[in-house]
């Protein structure tokens, strides 16, 4: 099936939610490593409300490591700062890393088994084979 529209890509926010814990023999499976073949940095509208409300749902350390591993941590602090809700400058940096750094093609790598999950056209394939369950 060939679609006529431009693809949409995987954001680091999504990466922050993904795990390979359902694989046989894997206990945590988090965070997944990233091998990025194509990265796109785009500009999206900043919404400070959204960013400050999504932060509690994130694993900060995983986010920072993911961004750093693909060379896009910018000047995001390694530690989550306190009272970030009113710190627009900080929220903008988070916004950038979460939503503006996108992966088009590459791989996610299980930290325990080394199993690779392909990302193609912005869609990570997390399906496991029957013998991996």
């Amino acid at each position, binding site marked *: *099936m060939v*679609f*006529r*529209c*431009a*693809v*949409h890509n*995987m*954001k680091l*926010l*999504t990466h922050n*939610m*993904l*795990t*390979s*814990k*359902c694989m046989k023999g894997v206990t945590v499976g*988090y965070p997944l490593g990233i091998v990025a073949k194509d990265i796109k940095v785009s500009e*999206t*509208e900043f*919404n400070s*409300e*959204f960013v400050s*409300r*999504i932060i509690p*749902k994130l*694993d900060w350390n995983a986010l920072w490591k993911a961004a750093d591993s693909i060379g896009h941590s910018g000047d995001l602090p390694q530690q989550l700062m306190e009272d970030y809700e009113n710190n627009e400058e900080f929220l903008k940096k988070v916004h950038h890393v979460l*939503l503006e750094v996108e992966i088009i093609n590459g791989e996610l790598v299980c930290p325990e088994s080394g199993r690779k999950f392909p990302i193609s*056209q*912005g*869609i*990570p*394939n*997390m*399906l*496991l084979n029957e013998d991996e369950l």
Partner: protein
Amino acid sequence: MPSFKIETPSLSHLSHEDYINVYEPAEDSFLLLDALEDDLELLQQRRPVLCLEVGSGSGVVTTAIARTLGAEVFCLAIDINQAACSATNCTAKENGVKVDVINGDLVTPLRGVCAVDLLVFNPPYVPTPHCEVITSLEEPLTRAWAGGERGREVMDRLFPLLPEVLAPQGLFYMVAIENNDVPQIREVLSALGFQSHVVKQRRVRGEHLVVLRCQKHSDSLE
């Protein structure tokens, strides 16, 4: 009076050929959208940040949610069918919203950290022999409707995962049919810590469709 409306997204980029592999929006899809529209005031009060659709198919529901709830939510969609993932991606794009799509089985690729504020699922609910649930990759469309015994096999795998996925104030909407034994689904959900209600129902061509809304027992509405 403010109008609480969910607009049906444009699907003109999808053709007959696409629907060979991807579930074409039908009465069940639209009933789910209608149920969400009825609850829009509630949804807006809850101010979801993270929305997830399992089994997004064409992407019609996720895209409608993303458009309606706007810039303050992030929408994720998961489908087991690769063609459905591309279709969801495309429908979102064509309608000017961003949805991240994952090719995966139910919520199993996700970290269980009670983060999802709004979860929707229009599952394969048609009673079929068990073997039809696990069809070959050449027949992705079968997986869109084949629900196995009592039509329950796929949804029953999702239920036990709900407690670790849904946020404390999270809402879960699911389509089912009467033949799935709705009272028994509600019992299963209750035992897992969730209250549920039929918020919408419609009889269409011999199918009695319902939409269940489900939330934690500890969470009182309004």
